[in-house]
């Protein structure tokens, strides 16, 4: 109840993000139910269809976690702290909020599914897909509930895990207690041991550079190589690709998974590198602030950036699979799945950017106190965005082009 009461009073943007999570959850729930409906009438190949749902499911869970991390409920507040609502309880509140949003989405998915099957009447389009969704057969209740519970359960568990691992109240990058009592810096005049009892307040400490860049590059290269090799194989796989493809779909999918994993791993490292490049060679205030901020935010926004890069390059490459007279043409459910994946990954990146902005709020206040004009802060943000775009856009295009070569060959 407290989660609902707090959530009801939050900012409109926060409520909109929760609604988007509910919508994404509804989309995935609907895809899963459609898979079930199709499987009831056509049992062959149903496992493969279910497996394809894993991609939008993963994107939705990632989005739900990102929204929970940026949730204003999690912001440490004196009022809640005074009544004993510490980091652990706030994490539980955020997880509850995620569960409620996802459950709402699942309920909507069920209603829409039943409506299309013709089980609910009195509205337009009722029973439009009755034949496809096996309306003549009763729905297995256990299967329906299990499929609808997948998104809420996974999203809630991932949220709880993600928030628990970051230590609850800590909203900064990597924060640690400043060396204080009993630790005297060598050569320090005047600052005796224990001279800094006030330093018990946590101070943001720059996180070390992300170390995943070499692994990410290696995995991406390996993935592209596997995909190219697999495209020469026979089309005897049990995992048919959409559109038309003559090679080994299983190999291509394995290659693609490796490439996507590599890009996700390399994302933080590439972002950090962007920041480092931005602030080298005697920078002025704007380049210095933009570069260092990007370096500090690399872990927070780098992963969603890498995932978005992987998704977009995948979409561009998959585009080459489709053409006239395809055996498996681009249908509405494929479109829904693609829209969910692209929308969720883009929304995750935006939410992570928003979270980074929230974390940076104290730094912005400090800059304003030091007399920095608002234009400087805005320009530094624009420089960061331009740098990231300038690096990730060609990277996405290059990976997409390399991945599309074996598919179109």
């Amino acid at each position, binding site marked *: 109840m407290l989660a609902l009461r707090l959530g009801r009073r939050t900012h409109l943007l926060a409520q909109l993000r929760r609604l988007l999570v509910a919508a994404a959850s509804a989309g995935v729930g609907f895809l899963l139910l459609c898979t079930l409906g199709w499987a009831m009438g056509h049992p062959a190949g149903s496992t493969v269809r279910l497996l394809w749902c894993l991609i939008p499911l993963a994107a939705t869970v990632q989005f739900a976690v990102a929204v929970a991390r940026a949730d204003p409920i999690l912001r440490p507040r004196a009022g809640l702290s005074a009544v004993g609502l510490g980091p652990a309880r706030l994490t539980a509140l955020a997880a509850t909020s995620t569960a409620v949003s996802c459950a709402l989405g699942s309920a909507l998915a069920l209603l829409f599914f039943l409506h299309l099957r013709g089980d609910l009447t009195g509205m337009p389009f009722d029973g439009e897909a009755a034949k496809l969704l096996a309306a003549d057969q009763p729905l297995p209740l256990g299967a329906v509930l299990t499929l609808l519970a997948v998104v809420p359960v996974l999203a809630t568990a991932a949220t709880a895990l993600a928030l628990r691992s970051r230590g609850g109240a800590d909203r*900064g990058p990597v*924060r*640690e207690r*400043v*060396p*204080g009592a009993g630790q005297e*810096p060598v*050569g*320090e*005049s*005047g*600052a*005796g041991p224990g*001279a*800094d009892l*006030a*330093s018990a*307040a946590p*101070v*943001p*400490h*720059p996180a070390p550079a992300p170390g995943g860049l070499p692994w990410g590059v290696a995995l991406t290269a390996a993935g592209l190589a596997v995909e190219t090799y697999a495209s020469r194989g026979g089309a005897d796989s049990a995992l048919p690709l959409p559109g038309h493809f003559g090679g080994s779909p299983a190999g291509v999918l394995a290659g693609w998974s490796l490439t996507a994993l590599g890009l996700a791993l390399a994302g933080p490292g590439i972002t950090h590198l962007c920041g480092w490049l931005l602030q080298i060679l*005697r*920078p*002025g*205030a704007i380049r*210095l*602030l933009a570069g*260092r*901020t990007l*370096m*500090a935010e690399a872990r927070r926004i780098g992963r969603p950036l890498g995932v978005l890069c992987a998704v977009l390059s995948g979409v561009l490459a998959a585009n080459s699979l489709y053409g006239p007279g395809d055996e498996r043409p681009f249908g509405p459910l494929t479109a829904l799945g693609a829209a969910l994946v692209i929308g969720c990954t883009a929304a995750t990146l935006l939410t992570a950017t928003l979270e980074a902005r929230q974390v940076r709020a*104290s*730094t912005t*206040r*400090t*800059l304003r*106190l*030091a*007399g*920095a*004009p*608002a234009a*400087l802060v805005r320009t530094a943000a624009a420089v960061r965005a331009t740098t990231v775009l300038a690096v990730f856009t060609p990277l996405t295009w290059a990976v997409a082009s390399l991945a599309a070569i074996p598919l179109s060959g």
Partner: protein
Amino acid sequence: MVAPPDNDVLWARSLTYSHSGSPALDDVSLGVREGEILAVTGPRGSGKTTLLRCLSGQLVPRRGEVWFNSTPVHTMSALLRERLRRDRFSWIAPEPSLVPELSAWENAALPLLMRGASHRAAKTAAMEWLERLDIGAYARKRPGALLQSQRQRIAVARALVTEPSVLFADEPTAPLHRADRAQVLRTLTTAARSHRITVVLATLDAEVALLADRTVTLLDGRRVNAPRPSEAEGRAACSLSV
């Protein structure tokens, strides 16, 4: 609107301000002469910080006037006040608010870099002030790796590096122990005297106030004559017994 006296670099008349309805300043007037160190004293909640924020253009008083060098600050646009704060004023907060992503010298040099100074010149000036404040050895460290006292000295260096016309110091030695406090205050006052920087210093500490040329005392947002120590103690005792 009456122009302020010519010899006052900063002048305020009948300042009144309230935080969301809670009165913070009530009809406070004062003048600060060029190169003067003015201490603003008073117990917590007496309006010292609000007064400094009004004088420095961070807040616009609900009523009253603030003049800087015969220029009305209270009628300036937000953009002009921002520029004034950047070019002519400096601010030291009770807590050392530094940019965590920048090293000590970069934090100290930031105001110069924001003004468009070259990287080399900004670094040289920042290092000079860090050396004067005995933290030159930590110039390359990030704030997160430093003690609170060291961070506060960086904040002091950042405030002094531009050699501002007016330096607003809001309890600058609050987080420091006695030894650090003496050294930071000595540097601050020496710099102010040698560079003719006007200092408006809010403090709770009577010893700190002794370093000032003049003292203004606030109580419940109003300017009063400074109470004698025995009176202040008596008041505290009374409030405790209630």
